[in-house]
């Protein structure tokens, strides 16, 4: 009894610490900004009239449904891209599986601005593809027109969320499940549909819900396509326009946060009441089948086709970084190394800062995300769900709102020498960590859902304390999922801009994304921006490759142990 008491005290202390962290670095700064949504303009009296206005304005209602449509369709298309890659590379003997996993992740690492330009040059109305189509067949395809254009680009950009989480989940499934099904005569698609997919559902749901919320809250892609009649762009345009102090931008932010929380709640509901845990981890995941030559050919064709599509923007970026002039032509007029020469001098400090900030932020995310997942799934603390929901709202808070909130909350706090707290680089790290926390949280959540609680009970029955159980049983078994979370947070943190832009106080503290932004503020500077973008992507790719390697090693090592 006394033992149980100290346990729950320990858990409560952990929960309180996380709650404190979230309130200081997320809830409070954001609240200082969006309380405007609940006040009357000019007067400051509390009111809900702004929400009535929201519902009465055609533009907002139209934008809301457009956003829902685009997010839902993006999940469908992103799944279509991610499923084959995830299934083929985890389920079969597939040479280059690791390479596919790493490459398949790269679309998430699309540097701001330049990525957009590269995509216009390839898929735009007069991009390479359409210019060639027009020349050969006399027609063009509106890849980037309207809402469908947004869906196209978002599916390419965000499908790695599903890929990473689904792959991690598939790897975690015990091979004996599949063997049992095979012994009972199941095979082929039925085996996938009835055994592998249902068991991997937590991973899929984690990825799909992230895609949904992320697309719902994304500003950059719709604005790149000049689609303004979606909810997040409406909020962004209103919040960042000067001169007009308008509560509606913050009202929309509140709606965005509401949708994000509702999505997370709904995804928890889908998985509720079912048990996805398996007790064994023999050999690290599904048995890998061998492909027959014809199947193998087909599989490689599918994988290469998908990779070609989703990596096209990076190819465009690479071309742009070497291009002299690229205007109204399928390929650049000429090639040069000048852009790289120009950014090389500046970029070392940016690279150093980016690696430092991103790894710190991702580390914070994995620690907090893992802790929240554990508290929610393994304890009975009252109100533990709120931690999950609060952390998930970070997905929906526009970066610029978080940035302003940080300035408001921390700029007045002075360090002993008089410099404001918000001017320290660690504040940038915290802002990035908060923005990327939901990625790591979802990954940790999915990983823990797949671990049978009986393993922990066994450990405790043998006399292990809670802490020791977590250290020796839970964390090792979650490694794959936590690593997926780390990689996602790290890679996306490396190209985070909107909050960073508000917080960077000097060039020596600036990360790569800021350097990119500075270079892109001129119509003539796209080549240099692209070169810096390529450098960013390469660095992130190397880090991810290393992480994958480490994951593979640890899986194999454990496989040998058993």
């Amino acid at each position: 009894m006394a033992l149980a008491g100290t346990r729950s005290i320990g858990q409560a202390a952990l929960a309180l610490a996380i709650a404190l962290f979230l309130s200081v670095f997320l809830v409070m700064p954001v609240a200082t900004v969006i309380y405007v949504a609940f006040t009357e303009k000019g007067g400051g009296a509390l009111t809900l009239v702004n929400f009535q206005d929201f519902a009465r304005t055609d533009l907002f209602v139209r934008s809301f449904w457009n956003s829902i449509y685009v997010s839902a369709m993006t999940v469908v298309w992103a799944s279509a891209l991610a499923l084959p890659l995830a299934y083929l590379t985890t389920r079969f003997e597939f040479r280059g599986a690791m390479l596919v996993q790493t490459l398949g992740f790269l679309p998430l690492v699309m540097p701001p601005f330049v990525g957009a330009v590269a995509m216009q040059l390839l898929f735009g109305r007069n991009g390479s593809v359409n210019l060639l189509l027009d020349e050969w067949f006399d027609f063009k395809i509106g890849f980037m027109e309207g809402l469908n254009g947004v869906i196209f680009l978002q599916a390419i950009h965000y499908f790695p969320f599903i890929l990473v989480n689904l792959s991690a989940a598939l790897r975690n499934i015990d091979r004996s499940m599949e063997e049992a099904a095979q012994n009972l005569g199941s095979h082929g698609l039925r085996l996938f549909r009835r055994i592998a997919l249902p068991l991997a559902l937590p991973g899929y749901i984690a990825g799909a819900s992230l895609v949904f919320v992320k697309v719902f809250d994304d500003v950059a892609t719709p604005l790149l396509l000049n689609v303004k009649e979606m909810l997040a762009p409406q909020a962004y345009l209103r919040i960042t326009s000067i001169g007009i102090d308008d509560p509606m931008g913050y009202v929309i932010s509140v709606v965005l946060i509401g949708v994000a929380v509702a999505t997370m709640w709904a995804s928890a509901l889908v998985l509720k009441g079912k048990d996805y845990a398996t007790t064994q981890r023999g050999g690290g995941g599904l048995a890998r089948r061998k492909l027959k030559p014809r199947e193998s050919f087909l599989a490689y064709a599918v994988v290469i086709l998908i990779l070609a599509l989703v990596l096209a923007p990076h190819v465009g970026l690479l071309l742009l970084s070497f291009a002299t002039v690229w205007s109204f032509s399928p390929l650049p007029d000429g090639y040069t190394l000048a852009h790289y020469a120009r950014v090389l001098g500046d970029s070392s400090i940016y690279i150093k800062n980016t690696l430092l900030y991103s790894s710190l932020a991702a580390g914070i995310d994995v620690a907090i995300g893992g802790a929240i997942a554990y508290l929610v799934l393994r304890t009975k603390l009252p109100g533990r769900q709120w931690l999950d929901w609060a952390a998930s709202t970070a997905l929906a808070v526009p970066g610029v709102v978080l940035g302003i909130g940080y300035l408001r909350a921390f700029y007045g706090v002075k360090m002993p020498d008089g410099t404001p707290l918000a001017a320290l680089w660690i504040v940038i790290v915290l802002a990035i960590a908060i923005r990327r926390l939901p990625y790591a949280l979802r990954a940790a959540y999915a990983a823990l859902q797949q671990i049978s609680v009986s393993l922990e009970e066994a450990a405790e029955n043998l006399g292990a304390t809670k802490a020791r159980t977590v250290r020796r049983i839970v964390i090792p078994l979650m490694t794959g999922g936590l690593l997926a979370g780390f990689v996602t947070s790290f890679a996306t943190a490396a190209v985070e801009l909107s909050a960073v832009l508000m917080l960077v106080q000097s060039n020596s503290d600036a990360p790569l994304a800021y350097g990119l932004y500075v270079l892109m503020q001129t119509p003539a500077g796209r080549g240099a921006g692209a070169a810096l973008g390529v450098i960013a992507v390469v660095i992130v790719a190397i880090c991810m490759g290393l992480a994958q390697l480490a994951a593979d090693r640890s899986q194999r090592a454990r496989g040998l142990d058993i």
Partner: protein
Amino acid sequence: MVRLSALATGFTLGLIFAAGAAFAQTGKVTVVTSFSKDVTDPLKKAFEKAVPGATLEVQNRNTNAGVKFLEETRGNNQVDLFWASAPDAFEVLKGKKLLSPYKPKATGIAEKVGSYPVNDKDGFYSGFAASGYGIMWNERYVKANKLPTPKEWQDLAAAPYFDHVSISAPSRSGTTHLTIETILQGEGWDKGWRTIKEISGNLRQVTDRSFGVPEAVNSGQVGYGIVIDFFAFSSQGAGFPVKFVYPTVTTLVPANVGIVANAPNKAGAEAFIEFLLSPTGQEALLEPTIRRLPVRPETYAKAPADYPNPFKDKNLQGLLTFNAELSESRSAAVDTLYDQLITFQLEPLKAATRALHEVDAALAKKDNPRARALAKEARDLIASMPITAAQAASPEIRAAFSGGKEKSARQAELEQQWAAFAKEKYAAAKAKADEALKLAR
């Protein structure tokens, strides 16, 4: 060239040095700016050379983020200068008491460039360079689509330009806002909006970033863009196949610099302003990557042959005396009207415009008075405005945007009314145009 001129204007330079010495240690001068590295790097280098002991710390932020930043950090300000193009951003800062007044000591600076006063009348910020608005186009695009070459704003309203033009929203770009306001002041409220809507009916896109427009033109995604001159000049400098023209009625707008209230290094800030206005600073503006128009008339003597000169070139003298107070009094209303009537109603507006272009083509082949009358009615429907010029500047409407007590409706209500108004009129115009097309064919 710069070195030669430095010798030639040694006297003025001497003054600068004297000023620098008077301020003793200038130290670190922190500036928040929306200008790109292309602009800030050469000027930083020249400043640090001209004022020994000074270093310029550049914080790059877009104009909106910069204003917000100063606003949020005012309690513990660490910034000396705000340095950006859009005069309206400075007006906002001034209104929020975030600037401190300073009267530059430099002499020989023009009072006006084009028709716009160079300096703030209350002395809170100073213009150091000018830029004008015009039309930029991609030659390859124009050639491939066999399109004409524009000269005037009104040209862009013609049928061949349909779906080929790009602009940035006036609510997002201070310079577009001034262009719209210039047309409104030049042609009057009703006629001005008619012109603006006729051009806008041909738009391919309304971007939310100023440099989204040159980007789209440079890469050939759209043919024509309404842009500020240096976007076109620096694109040309980078080798893009683009051309640029100033229409007869253009606005020259000063780019500004102002000292932030409670600046930690006020002396350094003043030294930087004096440097920008000095002959050396002004000549630096002529560099190919910067290409702004100096506010010191004598500097043009050192400019390349084809450099625009607002103090000599006839088309840059400006026929119109820009009324800054009028502009200020209705700026929120004008921006919101543009967004609600055009940006967010672009599809219906374009549908009606396209139908009218077809009617015109049919009428050119075979005249039909009834169809002509219908087309005119349709044009009037498109041109009609939900509010008058007087209403736009009235206390009721202004209060709706500022949150004052006199407001007759909340901003959100006004927006919804205006949007509904436009939607209805454009639909009616489309119906009339379709009817006219049937008759004319």
